[in-house]
């Protein structure tokens, strides 16, 4: 019988390790399953909480801004506009903050058992994706209430936006997770970093409300903007703003590759320092 042979040696050249993750896909599944299960066991409101939170925020922003600041969000009504941005933002924010904390939280397991470490931040992102799917359902119902039409291009645009967002979230999350293991006080900067990103994303305001040219180019680099742009175009049928899309998608790819690279480079020593 041919037995699997493992060759153990000092860390060498970079590889993504996706093949190994595929071998460990069941563990990936169980980590995600556990976190979803525990999350909804612990809160009595359960899934409802995941839905109420973006709805509440949407209500707040609608009351605050739709009358006072008069953003031109046409053709989308402001509540639909805000909610679409919010559910995507929640996906990003919850992925990044949970993935960022995940390695510290799992220090006990990391020190005792080997498995591809990427599974840990990866499953944090999947848990966030599960919550997002719940939010998306509510959003779709909400669209129906506002008589928002869906078209053949809605799905590909939605998927494109989600894909961009997930790549950016995974890149940022893995990067922060690895940094967090090494620099324990780094975690305190994460909420601030997310806050800055929230206000630089086109969630409560449309991107074309930014007229200052330098600021416009800087904000276009924010990967969340590109994802929201694509997602909303699925509803409006407009052509995505090429500046936002190209700049944002480029940052997404850079962030994803850099985060993955840094994580893979440092992961061998997580057990020694965690």
């Amino acid at each position, binding site marked *: 019988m041919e*037995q*699997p*042979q*493992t*060759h*153990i*040696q*000092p*860390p060498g050249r970079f590889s993504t390790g996706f093949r190994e993750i595929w071998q460990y896909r*069941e*563990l990936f599944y*169980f980590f995600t399953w*556990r976190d979803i*299960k*525990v999350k909804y*066991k*612990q809160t009595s409101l359960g899934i409802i909480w995941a839905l109420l939170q973006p709805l509440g925020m949407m209500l707040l922003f609608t009351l605050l801004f739709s009358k006072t600041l008069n953003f031109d969000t046409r053709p989308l009504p402001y509540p639909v506009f805000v909610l679409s941005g919010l559910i995507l933002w929640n996906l990003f924010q919850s992925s990044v903050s949970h993935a960022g904390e995940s390695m510290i939280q799992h220090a*006990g*397991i*990391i*020190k*005792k*058992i*080997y*498995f591809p470490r990427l599974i840990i931040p990866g499953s944090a992102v999947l848990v966030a994706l599960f919550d997002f799917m719940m939010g998306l359902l509510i959003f779709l119902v909400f669209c129906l209430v506002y008589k928002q039409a869906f078209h053949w291009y809605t799905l590909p645009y939605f998927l494109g936006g989600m894909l961009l967002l997930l790549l950016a979230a995974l890149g940022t999350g893995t990067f922060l997770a690895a940094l967090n*293991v*090494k*620099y*324990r*006080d*780094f975690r305190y900067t994460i909420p601030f970093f997310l806050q800055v990103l929230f206000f630089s994303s086109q969630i409560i305001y449309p991107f074309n409300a930014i007229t200052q040219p330098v600021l416009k180019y800087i904000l276009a680099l924010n990967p969340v903007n590109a994802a929201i742009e694509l997602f909303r175009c699925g509803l409006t049928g407009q052509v995505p703003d090429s500046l936002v899309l190209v700049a944002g998608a480029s940052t997404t790819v850079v962030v994803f590759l850099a985060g993955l690279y840094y994580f893979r480079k440092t992961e*061998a*020593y997580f*057990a*020694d*320092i*965690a």
Partner: protein
Amino acid sequence: MKPAIDIRNLGKQYPLHDAPPYVSLRDILSQSVKKVFSPAEKKEKFWALRDINLQIEPGERVGIIGRNGAGKSTLLKIISRITPPTTGEAFIRGRVGSLLEVGTGFHPELTGRENIYLNGSILGLKKAEITRQLEAIIDFSGVEKFIDSPLKHYSSGMQLRLAFSVAAHLEPEILLIDEVLAVGDLEFQKKCLGKMEEVSRKDGRTILFVSHNMSYIASLCDKAVLLDKGRLVKEGGAAEVISQYISSARSITALDNSPIAANPIVRLLSVQSINAGHQRCESFAADETIGIEMEYEVLQAGHVLWLGYNLHNEEGVNLFDTHSVNTAQYTEPHATGKYKAVAWVPGHLLNTGMYFTSCAVFNHLRQVIHLHEKDILVFHVHDVFERQTARGMSPGEFPGMVRPLLEWKIEKSET
């Protein structure tokens, strides 16, 4: 057939640090400012393992022994891929199951059944394999009644049983075990050992076993490896290697000035067994008084320190614990300085055999353990035939965990 584990020139280097290995960004920033003004200091490193070469054939059961810090756990961690080596390489043929710690990943909110799946998959089982073995796992654990209630309602003993039960049903070709048997009650320990033996004999599984308990090693392993300060110093039959370890363990004395164990309050300088004449001695006659002496230095005044020993026989049975209850220092704080403490074990108490002594500096009232060094001292008790002992004239093995010479009296009750 190729060896199941083939280790070549393996080495593992760790940076030597007093502080925790992770750092804060604040420190990094302040250090980099300092570095501008003072030359960089060299970071010290030490080798936890050095030049290890070891071949283990499929089906061999190998005990890894050595003092604390000898590199035993590091070796298992490298083989189970938790940490990478610094130099060298190793080839592992077959699936590795590691029991470095049972119950890894257990979640209190999930039920026993759910935790079996979670823990099983963390330990490397496929979902289908777990489902196939589920009944056996639940049976073996003995917690059937509670299997569908959340783990947080389990006692720690029950959690351990469940955890071990999952681990015992792993079917890896190579099983790594590190001190798991130190926990749990005696009956369950025996059950686990039995299961492990059954598994390894029947399926020809390769086992690597790290333990301080020489009797477990002797009964479970056919081969043993002795590590000392990161180097492999002896490899061979279990009995042979154990006896070398025991003779090297005896040589822990104050001769080398490095403390055996230390913390900011107290450090242990030496532990040795002495005879009635205060001479160092490792082998005692059954009727001889045995002194267990530890030398320690108190670095911080004001602590009430209790001293204690516990004595285990070769089977790992804890024969007794003894604490420094009749000393002035039991209630009054120690001043700083060096101390020697002797506890005298009376003659005619221990049966013949090997004894493993652990020593501790602690205070149970304050719930602190300053030091606890397991099996730090080993001595031997042998028979003596020229003087009166409990054995009298009976030949052969004299059973019993202890062998006191009791006062007998025979009177004629009827005339």
